[in-house]
């Protein structure tokens, strides 16, 4: 009985991230539109878009191979599994020990790997440019992210996210410089990984500076729906991750009752809305940078991550 309950809870988590993800994307778009004094589409528009795309037939380039057709499902699966393993409303779920923080980063790396391969599959110049630049961004963002992982898990003493969150909720944390650095680094990485301004622009097409959109240019129909869904899931993952590690309020401890879970859920929704609104404000207030400046921007994240880790070696209390 307990096992069924635990499995159910894990299922709820998987379902929750999937259902909320397009809504978060819609919220960010809506907020951005309001901030630029436009009315903007409904928050529910991404759901409608996904449904519309899924029902359309796929137009496949003549040269596309099986890899091009399989990749969207691989990408959405890897991203979804990674998102399901990030604590949202409760920790200590049935399968939370399947993959630790490092493995979650690597799962996102797998998704990027297949997306970049898919971008090169048709053999167009745009696909190649997107893949090449995405891998460059990844080459900086992934190590920066891993250094954040190092910092956080050196503080918490484990790379298991459930343990990290449990530690962050305890009184032992206090105010730490290293965690502040890790937070800044993680925000920078999150912006880059989600193809957000100032690294990339999710709303652009037909621009030589685009990265993510250039890679998925040849996708259509249900394949494009999967890619868009994966992008939404990834955004949700990062917001949930920042929320779980740095604002762990309200996340239900392992084996908590119904009231605790409900409270966790409410807190999670509040965090999502807050994160989405902050992202919209940030995106409307800065300009996009040149693609070769991205290396410096992410290099800063890398250095902050390293500095945060090194501080912990000076003193475990920093």
């Amino acid at each position, binding site marked *: 009985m307990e096992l069924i309950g635990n499995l159910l809870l894990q299922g709820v988590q998987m379902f929750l991230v999937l259902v909320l993800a397009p809504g978060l994307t819609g919220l960010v778009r809506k907020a951005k539109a309001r901030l630029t004094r436009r009315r903007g589409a409904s928050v529910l528009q991404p759901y409608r878009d996904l449904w519309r795309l899924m029902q359309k037939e*796929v137009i496949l380039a003549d040269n596309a191979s099986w890899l091009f057709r399989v990749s969207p499902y*691989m990408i959405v699966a890897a991203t979804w599994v990674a998102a399901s393993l990030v604590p949202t409303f409760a920790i200590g779920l049935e399968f939370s020990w399947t993959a630790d923080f490092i*493995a979650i980063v690597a799962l996102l790396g797998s998704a990027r790997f297949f997306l970049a391969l898919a971008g090169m599959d048709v053999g167009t110049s745009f696909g190649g440019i997107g*893949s090449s630049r995405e891998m460059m961004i990844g080459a900086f963002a992934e190590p920066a992210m891993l250094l954040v992982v190092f910092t956080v898990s050196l503080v918490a003493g484990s790379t298991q996210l459930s*343990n990290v969150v449990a530690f962050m909720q305890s009184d032992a944390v206090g105010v730490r410089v290293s965690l502040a650095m890790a937070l800044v680094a993680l925000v920078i990485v999150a912006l880059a990984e989600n193809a957000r301004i100032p690294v990339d622009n999710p709303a652009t097409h037909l621009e030589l500076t685009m990265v993510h959109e250039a890679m998925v*240019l040849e996708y259509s129909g249900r394949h494009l*729906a999967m890619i868009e869904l994966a992008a939404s899931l990834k955004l949700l993952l990062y917001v949930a991750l920042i929320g779980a590690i740095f604002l762990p309020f309200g996340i239900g401890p392992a084996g908590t009752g119904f009231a605790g879970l409900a409270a966790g859920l409410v807190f999670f929704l509040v965090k999502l809305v807050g994160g989405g609104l902050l992202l919209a404000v940030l995106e409307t207030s800065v300009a996009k940078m040149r693609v070769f400046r991205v290396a410096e921007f992410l290099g800063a994240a890398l250095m902050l991550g390293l500095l945060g880790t090194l501080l912990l070696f000076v003193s475990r209390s920093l």
Partner: protein
Amino acid sequence: MIGAGLTIVGLLLVLSLAAAVLPNGPKTPVLVYGASTALCSGLAAIGFSALAASADPVGLILPIGLPWLGAHFRIDGLSAFFLLLLGIGGAAASLYAIGYGRHEHEPHRTLPFYPGFLGAMAVVILSDDAFTFLLSWEVMSLLSWALVLTHHRAEDTRQAGYLYLVMAGFGTMVLLLAFGLMAGSGGSYDFAAIRETGRNEMLAAAVLMLMLLGAGSKAGLMPMHVWLPVAHPAAPSHVSALMSGVMTKVAIYGFVRVVFDLLGPLPWWASPVVIVAGALTAVIGILFAINDGDGKRVLAWSTIENVGIIFAGLGLAVAFRANAMPGLAALAMTAALIHAMNHMLFKSLLFMVAGAVLNATGRRDLDALGGLIHRMPVTAALALVGVTAISALPPLNGFVSEWLMFQSVLQSPQLAQPGLQFLVPAAGGVLALTAALAATAFVRFFGVIFLGRARSDPAAAASEVDRWSLGAMAGLAALCILAGVLPGLLIDFVGPAVEIASGDRLVSQASNAWFTLVPLPQIDSSYSGFLVMAFVAIVGGGAAWTVHRIASRGVRRGPAWDCGFPNADPITQYGAGSFAQPIRRSFGPVVAARETVFMPPPGDPSAARHAASTTDLAWRHLYTPLIALVGALATRANSLQFLTIRRYLSLVFGTLILLLVGLATWN
């Protein structure tokens, strides 16, 4: 056990001699490679059963080699593990060669050396005295040198062979010095006696440095790596697979055996050298892999990278052991040894893929390939497994060793020395960077070769390779998946080897639910490759099924969209050079990148050209001055060639006096 191993080695050597005298017909390669496959499988079986049974070490003395001393052989956990690695790699390469070897124009330049090369590597692993070890090491070097020179008519190959010979000679000389230091004044050269000899920490650290130079030059550690990216690709592809996949591991075996088993306690300050050398080798190696335009050279550079990762792990093990933390040393050692096994699996696989592409198209330069996923679907699918594994992506095997490596980096706060406390996380950051760059390198490798449209006529007309080759590649790909999904079994398996090298082993992983890895139970960090694989497969399959079921399943083929301006010319695709451009610009100083644009003068209608190049800084700052110095000294010494007999006699006399004076002052 040991007897059976040596019998197989003997048979391999006999096979080498037989290959030299057998008629040069179409049957001979099949016979030689088939027999090599069987014999290597035997070696793998011996290694496997020795590990599975956790058998006690068995020694054997044969009355060959030096008179009265004989040749000592021994098999223990460590040599069994590397014997297993050699057996798997050798069997796969030989199986592959049954098909691949048919395309060789001059099989008699490969066949007599090939089984002997395998046998020599086995002897290095099985030897239990310094003389046998060094002799077989040298035989291994020379036979692989002969194999590198298979295509000796190409100028590049001859240069590569010369460079390899020089570096191999240097390596053996340094190893000779290392063993000389270890044997001490007693002068006993069998490993048991060396193990018993007490030596101070300075001497031990000196031996460590010499081993780093000697074994490192064979494994490809910087800055002794210069021969590797030219020599490994020059050989036929199954030999490249052996050299990169297996021979570098034999070098690592030599390092582990001497430094961790024979040498005794090491001072902690010896470990930063190993860690720094490993981490720098890893990141610089992969940067050159990203920038190289030749498929097999990309793989060779990536071998350098992986050797760097292994050495970083070994350096961590030295640090933990010097701090009397055998449990953590075992974690780092497990990471290094499992990475050695993993690298053998996926690098052999990828060299075979490169060979298959070379056979099908005749081209090695990436910019002549493209679109092969349509022409060679099975090779492409197997290559995809290889590139996913080598990029350290879950749930394949490359990620397991990487994960273990990071776990041991995260234990470094327990080290007592502040210097190491700073160095280890920085090295961890460099390793993280290396992993991300490896993914870039192999997206480029796979994308330019297999995806897109064909960039040359041979690539457009390629066809799938033979079944022997596909079988060998499929076997390695299956092992990559298996080692990624069931890593606990591998960790338990490598336990006896780790115990010899670090004095402790990880707790048994066999009883964990869902094949989860929990290397340090007190830390509670876990990873289950099996569940990740299962979840991704179920979720991905489920998503595909649901979408096809409830939404649409229609497909229409059409021309590529490409923002409305598709260009039919395949040269408009992103190629090897353009894909590398962002990384080349970001890391320009490390690889000494230069980009030049040649603009025709105004009014000249000829095309503008763009050229990008990278330079190995080790060549520029170490080898070029060294070669110039040797040249200058040789020119000076040249005048000694034309002396009269009286002057020669006085020179001889003077030298004699000098030596005697030296000897007198020494005593």
